[in-house]
């Protein structure tokens, strides 16, 4: 990574936000930091997936939460778990890695199913179709209680994931006074982020990556050159969806429970905010976007509880979401290319 002005700005913002956590929290700042890093890593993975859809290919995907959900539900239901009202325990299951791979495939196939009909539609119509699909997914999962646990969700599945954690983490967690489970989720997520970025950097400059960006710029030109633009879009949709699936799986392991309300449309818009903040089309952008985003909202919670003394927990959380809305508006107006994005690669002004 060459050191440019953008990198320096991004890095110093991250250092500043991590410092602010240590300054603003007297009790257990390390614990808060690990929690933040776990969420930031998971959301960064998801934003990387979304960036392939929107940043590279120009597909407006408002159903990202469903891609995360499909991956999470498929994997978690294949490993030992307890689900539903009675919490009926299902002890036999596939090995974790096979389950994860099936989960990622399921996300990709779901992406294909949604994409196959929808991909021909113009931008704003694609937005409506994808958000509707994601709501259909959520409503169906909620409804099929026998299979998915419905509103009662799925629990007791994290052991399989925690069994594979390296032993030295336990010592480290003890020393830092943080939860070892979350430390493992955080480290695993960030390993995945780095791996993904490494792979995608290669992919971006491959013929395939260039063809994708050509689709974004001028679909007709791609067609004229004999490339199948629809198939390219579908491939991008599937790749991004399975990356989202991975982040969904990790999100479930981080919470230790799988609830359908985790995959509301608001989650999609969180990921959008992170992607725009980091920089649309930039590969390493989601890292910066994600850490800054989580530092931003974890600090607003504190601030909000000071300003609004009488408010209940949900109202405090409301302040945070409200600021996410402001963040999206402000970014789109003032700096639509985010921290790392390139202005000339931005698709946002297409009519």
């Amino acid at each position: 990574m060459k050191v440019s002005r953008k990198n320096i700005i991004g890095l110093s913002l991250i250092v500043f936000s991590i410092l602010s956590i240590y300054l603003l929290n007297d009790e257990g700042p390390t614990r808060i930091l690990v929690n933040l890093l776990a969420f930031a890593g998971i959301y960064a993975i998801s934003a990387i997936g979304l960036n392939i859809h929107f940043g590279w290919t120009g597909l407006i995907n408002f159903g990202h939460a469903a891609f995360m959900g499909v991956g999470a539900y498929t994997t978690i239901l294949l490993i030992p778990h307890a689900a539903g009202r009675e919490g009926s325990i299902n002890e036999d299951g596939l090995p974790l890695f096979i389950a994860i791979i099936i989960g990622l495939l399921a996300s990709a196939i779901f992406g294909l199913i949604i994409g196959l009909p929808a991909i021909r539609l113009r931008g704003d119509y694609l937005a409506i179709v994808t958000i509707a699909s994601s709501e259909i997914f959520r409503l169906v999962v909620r409804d099929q209680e026998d299979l998915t646990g419905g509103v009662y969700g799925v629990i007791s599945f994290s052991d399989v994931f925690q069994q594979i954690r390296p032993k030295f983490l336990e010592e480290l967690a003890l020393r830092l006074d943080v939860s070892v489970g979350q430390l493992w989720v955080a480290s695993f997520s960030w390993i995945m982020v780095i791996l993904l970025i490494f792979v995608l950097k290669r992919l971006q400059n491959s013929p395939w990556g260039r063809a994708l960006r050509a689709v974004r710029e001028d679909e007709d030109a791609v067609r004229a050159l004999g490339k199948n633009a629809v198939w390219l879009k579908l491939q991008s949709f599937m790749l991004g969806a399975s990356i989202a699936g991975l982040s969904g799986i990790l999100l479930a392991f981080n919470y230790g429970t799988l609830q359908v309300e985790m995959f509301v449309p608001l989650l999609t818009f969180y990921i959008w905010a992170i992607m725009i903040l980091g920089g649309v089309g930039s590969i390493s952008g989601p890292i910066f976007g994600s850490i800054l985003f989580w530092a931003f909202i974890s600090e607003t919670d504190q601030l909000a509880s000071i300003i609004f003394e009488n408010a209940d927990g949900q109202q405090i959380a409301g302040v945070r979401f409200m600021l996410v809305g402001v963040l999206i508006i402000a970014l789109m107006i003032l700096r639509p290319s985010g921290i790392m994005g390139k202005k000339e690669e931005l698709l946002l002004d297409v009519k």
Partner: protein
Amino acid sequence: MLDQLGNGLLLGIIISVASVALSLLYGVTRIVNFAHGEIIALGAIMASFFSNLPTSRYIFFENTSPLGLSFELSLVLSVIICGIFGAGLELLVFRPLRKNNFGNIAVLVITIGISIFLRHLYLIFASSKPQDYPLDLQRRQQYFLFDLTPRDAKIIVYGILIMIIFGLFISFTSIGKQMRAVRDSNELANITGINSDKIILYTWILSSMLAGTAGIFQGMINDVRWNMGFLILLLVFAGTVLGGIGTSFGAMIGGFIIGIVVQVSVALPFMEGHSEAKNAIALAIMILILLIRPQGIFGRKERIS
């Protein structure tokens, strides 16, 4: 199934009014307004704020208490506030964006930001507890085929009346004609001397007032919640798309069909015990329509791929 038809009619009217508003706005300004749901909720919440008694158990934010005005007055006031709010959105946000040539996608993302901001502002202001209007309970009666309370019947009559007035307004008044002209082509309308900025402002006001009305109706048959706008928004989209986005008459019929389908589907045999998933059917219909006939039932052919 027949008992559900009355409820379907009721929901149909509400979605219909909201869809007409969304469709009008899209037609004239080309904005896919994800904040439409929040304008719907604004109407409902404002009416609750005006009409509930200060001593009621409903919690508004610390220093503001409900006002306890009569319900009719509150209704009028909140519709007016919605209109002012729509004008504010246009003047403060969307007109500057238009002047700076922001693209459709950027504006779309901004409406999402506005929607998230407003929804949680309502949460802070009105708390997460569902609220009711101070209206007395009414017994259901038989109207033709439908089981409805007198208030429900009134909502249906007023809803139809509003749409007739809207139809007459858009067809015969000068401003209505200018709106249709701007919808068909902004440049051509400008050439003929129409001040399109003014017409777009009027469109925002009209659309927001209709949305607020739909919200108050929804609050009257259900309850008022901070997130009610987003819950109904996708159904409104479904109605708009089904009828043909950008067409007023289409949106009326589309919204109506969606409302009836959602409520009647509860009574279908395979939906037994799955009533929570009823909205999924409406959304599936919308996706199907977009695939088979993207311009909707009444829309004109237009390239949308």
